[in-house]
């Protein structure tokens, strides 16, 4: 491949910009400290309280916490300002342990300066042996600093060896290759998104590099998540809740119920779904029950959709005799969903016409991020599997259905059947998402009209298409109904009501509280972002499940509602607007977008009433809301093309997508939930932390 001089020049510029940022911004502390005169703090003057001292300045903690005093700093600095302290220490017995924050020395700094005679407390600082930059403590006193006191505590181990303490130390330049690569990518994106970029002028796919862009984008979004998953010991070794593994074992044995025996006390309960009594009895008898499984007629069942088990877990178990970790189907589904979203957006863009490639790519990222996949990759457990598989099948089903339509008005039967199969399989993952199948009536409205208005030959042709459309549904439905019937005696009973969880799901409570809370949380909850790593915390208090004091219901943390975190949804109302001069494709897409939005909202309301308010349930409806919003964005772009407004609109969409990325990217390192990276790989977590918290 021939590389032009112009391309090379641009590439060098991008690399130089990234290099400049890496050295001048992310290492500015190193540059700042270049001008300092280092002062060595005599180790014999360093007072250690609650420590036993050994040779070579090795200290052993003899209480829960120890204290280090650095006194007489004013004299040692000789009138100069103290800016930092370098603690050249090592933690000899701080070995890495799984499933806990490990190898960390926590320092609580207290400072006596001209403005604080009785100590000012600063935020705690974490030191890890293998992260040199963590050993530099930057301080800014109110006037001259007299004394620094460090409260010391260890996550594990008790030993600390002090090699040297330096005041106003020169912090070395820490060149992070990963950060540098990320900066190159970001600079390239900035370059690619500028107004004059070829990506804004073409529909894409014209050149080889353009065709590879989506794959590169997919790698950029999914590979870091995959890396963090496989580096997280917590996920690879200690996930207890494995319903799909148990289901695979049961199915391999030719059973639909689990092998585990149900305790006698549970079988004797009048209402085994009442958690308040169940918990008491479990404690009294000392016999535990299987949490979050369906219990029916003396047997445990898995109420999660069976399709992921049949596709991933059962074949693996049968072929290898071992279980597939949940992370693999989730990663597979994430990749497939990304590809499906890109193809669907591209398909819609082609039908609209003149949609720039940059916009298609941005919308792909916005939809992919917005449909909770970053969250599932942070929490890749069994709960995520059916939901993400439901999303995967939905997006591919819709794409295949759209592909099945030809310009001649005929439908490609194979694609139609494949689309139907995907949409039918959705019901086997998340039954409620099967509602999206009704979109077929909108997509194939013209074909359906032919059944009534067409000629005999047309009707015959349509009937064949109807057959191709319906056959996968019939087959999948037959399988699912049989599965339901043998489990719960009814072909329509998916077993959700028999769940042993926090609330009695066998009794449905319809409540205005739930509806209001659900709408507010799912759509409008503002995220809680902050300026300290990991930059996001759980908005609100997940325990406020009966805020109006009328009822109790299942409510977990919600990180952010769909609208504030996916601002492109603000354009969604435009799909409901009517335009007289719209062409057939535009009208059809608007109808499709509007129907998708209506079904999604309906699903949201059903979810709040039937299940509660849980972040992962957002995925049930976010995907289609975002696809509808993408249609709105592309139609608006087409409408404004060539006017003064086009550039403003372009800027607005870029800003909206950046806001979406800034919110969702935090899921990569978010802690505070199950399987935190902080516990699964403390070293990696703190390396990421210090890569961002560079000052």
């Amino acid at each position, binding site marked *: 491949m021939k590389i032009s001089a112009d391309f090379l020049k641009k590439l060098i510029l991008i690399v130089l910009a990234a290099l400049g940022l890496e050295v001048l911004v992310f290492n500015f502390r190193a540059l700042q400290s270049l001008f300092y005169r280092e002062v060595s703090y005599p180790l014999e003057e360093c007072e250690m309280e609650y420590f036993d001292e050994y040779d070579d300045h090795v200290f052993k903690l003899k209480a829960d916490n120890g204290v280090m005093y650095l006194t007489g700093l004013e004299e040692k600095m000789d009138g100069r300002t103290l800016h930092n302290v370098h603690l050249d220490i090592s933690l000899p017995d701080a070995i890495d342990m799984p499933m806990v924050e490990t190898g960390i020395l926590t320092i609580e*700094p207290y*400072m006596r*300066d*001209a*403005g*604080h*005679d*009785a100590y*000012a*407390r*600063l*935020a*705690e600082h974490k030191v890890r042996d293998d992260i040199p930059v963590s050993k530099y403590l*930057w*301080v*800014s*006193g*109110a*006037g001259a600093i007299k004394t620094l006191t460090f409260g010391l505590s260890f996550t594990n181990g008790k030993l600390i060896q002090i090699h040297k303490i330096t005041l106003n130390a020169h912090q070395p330049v820490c060149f992070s290759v990963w950060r540098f690569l990320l900066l190159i990518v970001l600079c390239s994106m900035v370059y690619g998104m500028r107004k004059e970029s070829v990506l804004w002028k073409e529909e894409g796919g014209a050149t080889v590099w353009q065709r590879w862009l989506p794959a590169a984008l997919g790698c950029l979004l999914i590979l870091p998540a995959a890396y963090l998953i496989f580096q997280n010991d917590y996920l690879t070794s200690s996930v207890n809740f494995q319903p799909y593994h148990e289901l695979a074992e049961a199915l391999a044995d030719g059973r639909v119920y689990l092998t585990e025996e149900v305790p006698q006390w549970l079988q004797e309960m009048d*209402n085994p*779904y*009442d*958690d*308040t*009594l169940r918990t*008491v009895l479990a404690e009294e008898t000392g016999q535990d029950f299987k949490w979050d499984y369906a219990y029916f007629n003396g047997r445990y069942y898995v109420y999660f959709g069976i399709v992921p088990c049949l596709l991933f877990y059962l074949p693996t178990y049968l072929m290898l005799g071992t279980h597939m970790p949940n992370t693999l189907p989730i990663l597979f589904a994430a990749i497939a969903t990304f590809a499906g979203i890109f193809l669907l957006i591209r398909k819609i863009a082609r039908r609209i016409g003149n949609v720039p490639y940059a916009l298609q790519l941005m919308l792909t990222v916005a939809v992919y991020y917005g449909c909770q996949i970053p969250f599932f990759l942070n929490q890749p457990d069994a709960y995520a599997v059916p939901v993400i598989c439901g999303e995967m099948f939905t997006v591919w089903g819709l794409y295949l259905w759209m592909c099945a339509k030809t310009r001649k008005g005929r439908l490609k039967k194979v694609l139609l059947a494949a689309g139907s199969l995907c949409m039918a399989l959705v019901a086997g993952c998340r039954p409620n998402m099967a509602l999206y199948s009704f979109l077929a009536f909108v997509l194939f409205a013209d074909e359906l009209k032919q059944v009534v208005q067409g000629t005999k030959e047309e009707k015959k042709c349509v009937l064949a298409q109807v057959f191709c459309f319906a056959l996968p549904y019939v087959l999948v439905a037959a399988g699912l109904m049989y599965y339901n019937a043998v489990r719960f005696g009814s072909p329509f009973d998916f077993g959700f009501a028999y769940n042993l969880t926090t*609330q009695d799901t*066998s*009794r449905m*409570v*319809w*409540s*205005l*509280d739930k509806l*209001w*809370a659900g709408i*507010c*949380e799912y759509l409008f909850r*503002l*995220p*809680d972002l*902050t*300026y300290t790593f990991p930059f996001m915390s759980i908005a609100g208090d997940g325990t406020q499940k*009966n*805020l*109006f*004091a*009328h*009822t*109790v219901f299942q409510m977990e943390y919600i990180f952010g509602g769909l609208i*504030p975190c996916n601002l492109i949804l603000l354009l969604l109302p435009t799909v409901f607007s009517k335009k007289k001069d719209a062409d057939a494709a535009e009208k059809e897409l608007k109808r499709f977008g509007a129907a998708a939005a209506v079904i999604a909202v309906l699903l949201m309301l059903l979810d709040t009433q039937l299940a509660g308010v849980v972040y992962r349930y957002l995925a049930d409806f976010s995907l289609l809301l975002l696809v509808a919003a993408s249609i709105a964005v592309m139609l608006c772009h087409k409408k*404004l093309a060539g*006017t*003064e*407004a*086009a550039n*403003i*609109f372009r800027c607005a969409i870029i*800003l909206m997508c950046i806001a979406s990325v800034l919110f969702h990217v935090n899921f990569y390192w978010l802690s505070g939930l199950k399987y935190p990276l902080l516990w699964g790989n403390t070293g990696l977590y703190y390396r990421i932390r210090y890569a961002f918290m560079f*000052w």
Partner: protein
Amino acid sequence: MQKMSGLWKILLFFLLLSTVIEFAVFNCRALQSMAYREISYPAEKIEAENADVYEDGYYVLTGENGRGQFYLTDLDDVLQGAELKNIRVELELPQAFDRPDLESGVAKVQLYVRDEGHDRYAVLEEQVIRPDVEATGYLWLDTYGKVKTLVLDTALSEGDILRIKGIRLNSGKTFSVSPVRMLCVFVILVILYGLRGKSDLWNAENGISGRKELFYALLLGIFLLLPAFALNMTNDYVMADMHFRPYQQLAEALAEGRPYLLEEPSAALQALRNPYDHTAREAAGLVADADYLWDMAYYQGKYYVYFGVVPCLLLYLPWYILTGSHIQEVYVLLFLGTLLYAGIYLLCRSVLDQSARKIPYAFQLLASATVFWGSCITGCMAAPDAHDVPRVCGLVFVVWGLYLWKRSVCVDKGNGPKILLLVLGSLFMALAVGCRPNQLLYSFAAFPIFLPFLKTDGTYGKRQRNTAIIAYAVPYILVAAGLMYYNMVRFGSVTDFGYDYNLTVLDYTQKNLFLDRIVIGIYEYVFRIPRMGYRFPYLQQGSFAQGDAFGHGTFYYTWCYGGLLVCNWIVWCIPAALQRQEDTDGTKKRGLLQGRNVPALCLFVISVAELLINISVAGVAWHYLTDFSALFLLVGWIGATVLWKRLEGTAGLAYFRGFLIVAASWSFIYHSCFYLISNLQYGDTGAYYRLFHTFNFF
């Protein structure tokens, strides 16, 4: 005439619609309960625990923390198979009395429910019953099947005696028509109608007559200010003399001819080596307000007020001298809020008219409202505090000063500025410095405004120029002389406003500027996302800005609610105001300032400087936004006018109009919440819970 009759029809329709909404939506519980069969729960069946029973339903609560439990058992039998939907608890609290500083006259009830889904009690959130607010007596339940037992775990705000007059199950709720709520719905409907795309308000060509404009301006003023007046009138908390009262103390001192306060600093404080060190004061056992005056300037054995003296000279001192009593902050801030609205309206009209001729009147209305809200005045009026007085007063002077300056230059070419307006403008801008010294920066806005008069290209005569310069400078000189004298007699320096001698959380005599506070300050002031919930009062106080979040140093910080970019979307239009505009022939001008809106650029630079100065000198506190937010929004609206002009005649105009409406609506929702988080809950508990149930109608 036909048009008028059409308008009346629409208003009548909205009135009907708001009535329907009032009955069908806000009284949904009353409608719902119409189908219930009410059952009185027998008083003798109430089982009390931790409560002594007396005759006539009187109980004395004896449990821990003054709590008592009332068991309603056998509900299944009492209800005869019906499901329990609500209970009506009629209470009497004989010992209750209204206090101005605490939530009072209430019983707090926590419900425990045993139903078919919860054999071991489900716990519901605590609810408040206030006997004089009927809606609080209805406790609604959505239970898991039939209810077996209910427990009312009760505590009282005052005393320990309560009387249960009756408990009714599935009680029919009476319809409650709230005129306030109906008015709100009506006003919102009218506003939405007025802002629809086809409205005359969006038609720039139509213009608007003077009388009509006055009418609209007054209506808008009432809409913006009425809630603050209404909420404060019955709020004893803001009326009571229990707060920080520096201006009142300063008025007393000035009336006696002294710049320092009458109160003598304690010997213990005077004995401290560094009295400004909060940690040292605490270590010495000194208690704020008992052993020393918190948040006052202490200098050489005397207490001073470090707040700007101008509000005291203009409002507090005359009032004290004339009446012998003190004026409350609430009246001062309501008065200043009214002046601020008028100033913002006039300034917006003047600035936007100049920025782009023939803009729709809706712009003027939306701009005035959002700039007013964005100045954080709603929070200041809802919870009046002496700290807000100098800031708001300074802003009022800045806004009026800028307006008068702009008006003074509205003259035909060749004529000099109108001297009287110029003098008044300069006087106001100078007085702003006497309120908040950092607002001196806004005086630099004079340069772009008066730049044409300073040019020596022959357009203006030397005499005109000199007159303008003198008219500009004299008020500054006079006010500066007064302020310098005031500073001199207090702190021995003409430029020392005494800010450093403040007895507060940090020692301001020690300067400590570092990167953290800049990062944190910019985040808090510009980017912070507010914490909003779905239950009254909807806005939650954000966590304290983490002033030492990075562990490098300490500085002054207090809670923040929301940043400018997040809560005032119009600020997103600022880049358009700062962009170089194309000439009529489509070419862009060269030079740094050529083709740019210099006043907008100047205001923006000043506002950014104000923001950074506030962060560097003072710290991070939500109230400091008043110093710069309104001017940011004004620049945002200038940008909006630029965009509007660019989009005229294109399909994008409708989208942009939609954006402006959504931006203004969000601004309204966010800033209105400040009225709801006021201290009304303490100052007038009854009114608070009436308001609570007006919004929490289900």
